[in-house]
């Protein structure tokens, strides 16, 4: 008997619970299983008793009253003997992971509403998903957060839209604030800096502006490329930059392109931007996209099966913002239509291409010729026979309206015709579509040949 009990005690509760769940799963409907059983956990196994921890009394009552016999049967099958089943309510399970409960909430604080905008707490270094495309940037961000002002100054992130530049920048800011809450941080878009500058000139308060920006410990400026061509702003920023750098204040900048490619930026600013560390952030690769989707799901307290996540990740090679948008759309639709998350159910989101198919004008002209049984030479040639004119006008209409080609370009494609000719042809078909059934039919049928 002694041996038996030690044997049972050594059973891993988590593994046993998995086995029990496998048995329960086939006995109850999927939605019931997901709701009632998935959030429960087997926390303790003793000689005679199993203790399950559940998120709230609703779960306790439901499992005890509706599912106790089933649980006992499954437990007997898995563990080889009868057990009593006990329940314990563990409210911390009801709270989504992202909001961890502090032991004691802080005392009331003076609202930290000074003139400085607070940084969005959503963006932290901890929830930044690191992958091949951004690990260098992440490492640099860590270094700067550890040692602001000294590691790399300025730190310059560049890359396309939605790759995480702002996230990293705010993540550094938040990390520094967490360590030293009294740090003065200014986060602004380049546009805000420009407006402040313009306002300061208008109201004759340049002193205030200088005080504000030059007294900060950390300066974060987003989308610096918009400084392009703003000479006054650039000069002000140049001086701010110099002063901050001399007193070892950290400067972090982002842009959608490297400093050298930003047009109309003074050389002295460019060289200063390049004086620190410049890092290119690429759009995420497949593995990173999978990791990001998993992180986002967790953040939202949702679960999606792995194959679904992979399917989403492989079908969108886009930036992270669009990826998240798609994920939200999918989750929302599944929720409102009560569909279980499976690859089939999400396939219609995946298959809708984000970009519209780009059509080749040459192919369209060939399609039009094919439809009317003409030569491309005749269609674009100088002859003005009746049988040629209508197809030619239809071609003008389709090229300008459907492909949004310019009238000049359309004219060029059709044998160097004048743009006014094209406009006339286009307008004629526009009118005819509404009045002439035959023309309407032709246009629709032609379009069908290439769409």
């Amino acid at each position, binding site marked *: 008997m002694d041996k038996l009990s030690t044997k049972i005690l050594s059973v891993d509760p988590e593994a046993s619970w998995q086995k029990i769940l496998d048995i329960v799963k086939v006995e109850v409907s999927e939605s019931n299983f997901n709701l009632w059983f998935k959030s429960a956990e087997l926390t303790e196994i003793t000689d005679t008793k199993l203790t399950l921890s559940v998120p709230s*009394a*609703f779960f306790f009552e439901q499992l005890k009253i509706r599912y106790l016999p089933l649980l006992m049967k499954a437990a007997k099958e898995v563990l080889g003997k009868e057990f009593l089943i006990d329940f314990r309510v563990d409210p911390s399970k009801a*709270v989504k992971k992202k909001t961890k409960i502090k032991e*004691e*909430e802080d005392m009331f604080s003076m609202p930290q509403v000074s003139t400085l905008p607070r940084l969005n707490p959503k963006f932290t270094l901890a929830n930044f998903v690191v992958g091949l495309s951004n690990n260098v940037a992440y490492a640099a961000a860590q270094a700067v957060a550890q040692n602001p002002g000294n590691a790399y100054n300025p730190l310059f992130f560049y890359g396309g839209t939605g790759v995480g530049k702002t996230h990293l920048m705010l993540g550094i800011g938040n990390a520094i604030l967490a360590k030293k809450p009294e740090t003065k941080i200014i986060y602004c878009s380049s546009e805000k800096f420009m407006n402040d500058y313009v306002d300061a000139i208008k109201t004759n308060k340049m002193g205030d502006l200088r005080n504000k920006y030059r007294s900060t410990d950390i300066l974060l400026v987003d989308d610096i490329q918009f400084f392009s061509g703003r000479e006054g702003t650039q000069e002000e920023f140049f001086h701010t930059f110099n002063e901050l750098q001399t007193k070892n204040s950290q400067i972090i900048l982002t842009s959608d392109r490297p400093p050298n490619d930003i047009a109309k930026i003074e050389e002295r600013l460019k060289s200063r931007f390049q004086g620190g560390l410049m890092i290119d952030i690429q759009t995420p690769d497949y593995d990173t996209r999978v990791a990001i989707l998993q992180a986002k799901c967790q953040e939202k307290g949702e679960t999606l099966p792995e194959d679904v996540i992979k399917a989403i990740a492989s079908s969108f090679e886009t930036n992270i913002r669009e990826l998240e948008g798609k994920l939200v759309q999918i989750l929302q639709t599944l929720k409102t239509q009560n569909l279980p998350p499976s690859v089939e159910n999400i396939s219609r989101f995946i298959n809708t291409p984000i970009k519209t198919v780009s059509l080749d004008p040459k192919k369209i002209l060939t399609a039009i010729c094919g439809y009317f049984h003409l030569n491309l030479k005749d269609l674009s040639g100088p002859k003005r026979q009746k049988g040629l004119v209508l197809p030619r006008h239809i071609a003008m209409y389709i090229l300008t309206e459907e492909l949004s080609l310019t009238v000049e370009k359309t004219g060029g494609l059709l044998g160097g015709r004048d743009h006014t000719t094209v406009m006339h042809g286009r307008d004629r078909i526009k009118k005819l579509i509404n009045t002439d059934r035959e023309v309407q039919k032709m246009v629709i049928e032609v379009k069908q040949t290439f769409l």
Partner: protein
Amino acid sequence: MKFSILQQDLLPVLSSVSRSVGIRSTLPVLGNILISAEEKKIKLVSTNLEIGVIKYISADVLEEGEITIPAKTIVELIQSLGSVKIDFETEGEILNISSGKFKASINGIGANEFPVIPLPEGTGISFKKEELKSCAQILFASAVDEGRPVLTGILTQLSGGRLDFVATDGFRLAHKEVKIDDLSEFKSLIPRKTFEEVLRIVGEVVEDEVGIEIYTNSSQNQIIFKIAQTVVSSRLIEGSFPSWEKIIPSEFKARAVIDRGELVSAAKLASVFAKTDANTVTFKVQKDRFIISSQAKELGSQINEVEAQVEGEELEIAYNSKFLLDVLSAADTTQLIMEFSGPLSPTLVKPVGVEGLEYILMPVRLS
């Protein structure tokens, strides 16, 4: 199951219960209302697993039984029927409804799929419904943002014959105190949504002199309210609430009695220009008046005076206009007492003539 009931009796109960169904749940049965016919009465139940609501109503029951029906369908249907007698009868998982020439059958789900609502055990504490009703004046101060879950709850604390309700989001605090004849002790954090629902249900009770009973089950982290023919069972929020007593100032540097209406209009005017940064409105507290000013760089500025009887020293203090207006609108009496304990310390606001209600307003640091 078979019973008959008058539409005008059923509808208010049904709509009240339907507010707590689980709309966005993965489990379809949570979108349903459980209808259960017992001896001489029927029971309507809904739950979203945060809160569960049970209501009883008397009816002419011919055959006991139960079924669950989609809340939306049944509410729409009963709403559209006029004041008539309605007959209900189940046929397997279908509910047949008839009234005169009208007949409908609704597809339901078996009652055994419906969750069990945790019910009270042991003894609870009880007090009059008016006392709970006045708690509506503190709700606004609780946090809406889930970032600090503890602050989305209303602290309900019974100790030494005093029942305290406290709501705060860290920037302002509202406190309501009720004296009751009960020396037991408990402390729980009721989710704001539950509190709102309980207040709504209390508001729907037509009878006077209705007692409210509260039961808690701390091991299950659950609270149960019994209000007339209604039972509300809700999950509690886990965590410990900030020690709010410490924040209530015990002494003050200046004390003002002021007309609430005038202060509200002045605060509204000031808020027009308090749009930037911290919505800052500045008060200069002087002997016989407040000078209230606000400005926005882009918009302009305003200045205004409100009469006040002030004793103590003069000082200057700034508030977030939104938080200020929230307090002033909730207070709801003709006169207010404001007690200032310094430009960087919390201000105490008390409506004159209301027992046990007070507000704490955090100032904004002037830059």
